[in-house]
């Protein structure tokens, strides 16, 4: 048990994966986790998760209104201090719109809301959320989004490659990032990226929905490794 570690899960109006995330952190990982309303103070947390959902009903575009919530100023401060911060799905959209991660998330190429299990390849294992995984490792996780096409201009893409910030790719069963394995038209099959300091990470797939074998059609619990990495990162920081 790691109950001395405490994770904050931010709740915006319209978040809907907040309780699942808290459940996984408490019941599967065994750490303390609390919900934090987006107007409240972020105090005493070792890590922060911005969960999935539809903050403000995706008005204007997903994530933009939540990006102006009072709590985001505190998230930005914690990001500078090196606290691990993950944005899952809608949380990724919020991190992008808040300027904590570069690029844009556009409506899926097929224009449909896509809800299915995909394969992810881990491109870098030196981030706050992949450090117990090896480079090239494959995870099965579900996606559920309408605006998940990662888009960036050439300058941003070049920087992402040069600085090893592309952390997750959509791949096929053989681990190759093919067009067929790319569910939403994301540039270069990008499913998740991190900041330069590697403590802020956003991804479209849902690790909290893939953290228990009983919930996976493949009997996998790869999402667990995402959260375990965060705990490991916090432990090393504390030690």
């Amino acid at each position, binding site marked *: 048990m790691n109950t001395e570690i405490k994770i904050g899960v931010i709740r915006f109006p319209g978040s809907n994966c907040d309780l699942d995330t808290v459940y996984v952190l408490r019941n599967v990982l065994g750490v303390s986790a609390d919900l934090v309303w987006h107007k409240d103070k972020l105090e005493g947390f070792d890590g922060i998760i911005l969960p999935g959902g539809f903050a403000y009903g995706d008005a204007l575009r997903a994530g933009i209104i939540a990006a*102006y919530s009072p709590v985001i100023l505190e998230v930005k401060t914690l990001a500078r201090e090196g606290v691990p911060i993950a944005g899952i799905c809608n949380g990724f959209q919020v991190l992008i*719109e808040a300027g904590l991660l570069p690029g844009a998330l556009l409506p899926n190429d*097929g224009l449909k809301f896509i809800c299915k299990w995909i394969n992810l390849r881990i491109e870098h294992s030196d981030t706050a959320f992949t450090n117990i995984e090896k480079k090239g490792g494959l995870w099965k996780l579900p996606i559920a989004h309408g605006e998940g096409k990662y*888009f960036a201009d050439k300058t941003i893409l070049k920087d992402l490659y040069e600085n090893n910030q592309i952390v997750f790719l959509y791949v096929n069963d053989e681990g190759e990032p093919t067009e067929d394995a790319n569910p939403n038209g994301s540039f270069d099959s990008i499913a998740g990226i991190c900041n330069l300091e590697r403590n802020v990470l956003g991804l479209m797939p849902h690790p909290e929905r893939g953290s228990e074998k009983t919930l996976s059609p493949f009997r996998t619990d790869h999402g667990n490794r995402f959260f375990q990495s965060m705990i490991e990162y916090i432990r090393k920081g504390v030690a």
Partner: protein
Amino acid sequence: MRVCDRLPQKYTVEIVIENKPAARDPEGETVMRDLAHKSGYTNIKSIRTGKILRLNLEASSEIEAKDTVIRMVNELRIYNPVAHVYRVEIKD
């Protein structure tokens, strides 16, 4: 009457947001391919969809109305500069 003495006037301003040319517009492509072309409008070569925000505001001049809206668009990231372009138009 001098400009600075003018009473606030009501203006209608439109913000039009579109994807940059490098970002595909699957909705526009679908409308062109599955509606326009299939209905015989084969001379239409591209359709781009976008989003429009129509604002009513008070300002002392057209220039001030437009400046206010442009400032808001940039300050509040009404568009994502990575993926979108925007234009602001005063409406009569």
